[in-house]
Every structure is written in C-alpha cells, then in structure tokens.
C-alpha cells in the first residue's frame, strides 16, 4: 500500500512540476518566475523524499537538505538583486 501511495505521489508531484514549468515560461513578471522556481525546489525536495521511501535509500536525504538550502539562498538572492541592484552591498 505504501508503494502504491508513493507511485500516486510521484505522479502528482510530477504534475506539479509541469505546472511550475508552465508558470516559469508564461510568467508575466520576473517575480512570477522566481516564485515558480522556489515552488519547484520545494516540489523537488518532496520528490526526493518520496523516491527515498520508494527505493529504501536513506542517503537521499542529504540531497534534499542541500536542495532546501540552495533553493532558499537562490530565491533570496534573486529578490535582493531585484530590490537593490546588487546582492551584497
């Protein structure tokens, strides 16, 4: 039953990533694209955790943690650049 739930979750999260790609392509402003990239990083973390449960590979969690950190830094750096014109003043 857990395997079936993991497969359903993989399909749903893949669909979410497709919706995020649509927003990245169609976003009218650059902030829409930043927000879509941030959501895509969160979806990637969930995808990694579900795959780790499905394949019983606990080493995947370091990858998820690194994704969380890099995604946060990327989003904040993009917003800071848009606000101030540079990242570190």
């Amino acid at each position, binding site marked *: *039953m*857990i395997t*079936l*739930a*993991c497969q*359903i*979750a993989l399909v*749903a*999260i893949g*669909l*979410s*990533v497709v*919706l*995020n790609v*649509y*927003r990245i392509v169609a976003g009218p*402003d650059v*902030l*829409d694209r*930043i*927000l*879509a990239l*941030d*959501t895509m990083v*969160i*979806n990637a*973390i*969930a995808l990694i*955790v*579900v795959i*780790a*449960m499905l394949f*019983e590979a*606990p080493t995947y*969690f*370091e990858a*998820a*943690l690194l994704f*969380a*950190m890099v995604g*946060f830094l990327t*989003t*904040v750096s993009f*917003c*800071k*650049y*848009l*606000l*101030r*014109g*540079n990242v570190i*003043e």
Partner: protein
Amino acid sequence: MPIVAEFLIAALIVVGAFFLLVGSFALAKLPDMMRRLHGPTKATTLGVGSILIASMAYAAVVRGTLSIHELLITLFLFLTAPVTAFMVAKAHILRDRRERAKLPPTGSEKGWATLDPSPGSTDELAGFERK
C-alpha cells in the same frame, strides 16, 4: 508491519502530494501576483511537512531507527518559507508602481530604504527603476 501504521503512512503521503499539487495549481491558475504568492507558500509547506512526517514514521516502523534528517529539513523549510514569501512580496510592492503609490509615508525626511540607492554605491542600478 502493523496495518494501521501502513495505512497512516500511505494516507500521509497521498495527502502531502495532494497539497503540493494544489499549491502548484494555484501558482499556475490564479490571476494576480499576490494571489499567486498566497497559494504555494501555504500549500507546499503543508505538503512537504506531511510527506516528511510520513518519511519519519516509515523509518521508525520499517527500519526501526530514528531518522533525524527529516527533522532538519522540516526545521529549515519552516524557517525559510516565510522569509522567501516576505522577500518576494517586498520586491513585488517596490517594483510595481501602482502598489508603490499606496505606500504610507515614513514620517521622516528619508524615504523607504529599499527605494533609495545603497550607501556608497556608485552605480544607479536600483531595481525599481527598471520597470
């Protein structure tokens, strides 16, 4: 594995995936930037939290070990998601001229700090001028 634990873990995984899908669907469907910001910041946090709880319960029930990585990811995501949403909302307000006209006065001779050029910077690359 007890059937109750298995059912609970499967339900948590499916609920988390559902919330992630709802968040991304809101991001793709809603018409306004602020409404688009509202969707994924709530739903994806809930969805990832649910999936990480399921993963912790899975590690505890199946392998019999206590897994700490999920707690780290949960803590980090719950700390950083409001900061991210705040930065995106701030950049949106200060980039959009109609939103910027609705800002209240600061009450001093200096304006809003993000609108002034940074101290010591020689380039006039303040981002709000680009739109």
